[in-house]
């Protein structure tokens, strides 16, 4: 059972690394925002996974709040890119 977690964490780590490459490479602000959006969702999943590994129910709340704040952050970025701010 533990191996599944190692494999899953490895996959997620590679996913985060690939998204981070896009985040650094750009080339436009929109591409970076897309990468940020992807990273947010991966991090929410990672937080839930850590909640299970450390057996802390409380971390799920943290994941939920992080999801909400990440979503609103991406909306802020999108509205800024749109020229509405």
């Amino acid at each position, binding site marked *: 059972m533990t191996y599944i977690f190692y494999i899953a964490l490895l996959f997620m780590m590679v996913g985060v690394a690939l998204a981070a490459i896009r985040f650094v490479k750009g080339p436009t602000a929109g591409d970076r925002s897309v990468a940020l959006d992807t990273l947010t969702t991966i991090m929410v999943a990672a937080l839930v996974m850590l909640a299970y590994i450390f057996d802390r129910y409380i971390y799920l*709340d943290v994941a939920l*709040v992080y999801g909400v704040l990440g979503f*609103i952050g991406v909306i*802020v970025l999108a509205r800024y890119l749109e*020229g*509405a701010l």
Partner: protein
Amino acid sequence: MKKFIVIITLATLGFYLGQTFYELGFGDARFEHGVKDIYLEKTVSELHVANTITSIIVSFRGFDTLGEVTVLFLAATALGGILYKRRHHVGDRSVLFSASRIVRSGSKLLFPAVILLGVYVFVHGHLSPGGGFQGGTIVATGFLLMLLAYENFKVSHHVLSYIESFAGIFFVLFGLAGFYNGGTFLENFMPVGTMNNLFSGGVIPIIYILVGFKVAAELTGLIYTVLHEKD
């Protein structure tokens, strides 16, 4: 005349507060191994609170929290003061144009849930790693979502300042009630209940709810002021 009354009231209040604080004797008590063990022990035995940080922030070191809340209040007031003149020149739009229909409907649907999440975080401040500051921030973020999606979303400045002021006043009143009953600022004077229940921890949840309201109102006011300052 009005100013005179205010000054007299403030002076009297200040005099009595100063006298009380002078008699307190800050720093007289000495603990041989620091205070950490006493905090840990008292949190469980006296306050019945699951979250030690909460009890330290709100009860043992409640006076510091008052200072933090004051800093936030001053920041909000200062920003309001700086942007005050320009705000009156600009119309009542928070963003230049409304978002698309999808974003608008989505934020309408999510807004109550985000507010509820914030309220959940600060009501459960003494049971989970949340608290007044965090919950208040989430509530303010919900308002940010609406202000970004709609160009004419209104938040009443009067209501915000009333909430803020009353929360601040009640914070200080509860603290002074601690003086009256126990001897230190924010000393617990209410029944503590059993651990891990919602109604437990005596005065801590009430203080956290007040802090939550205050932070939410302040940050919403800040966001509102900043977004309306343009053109």
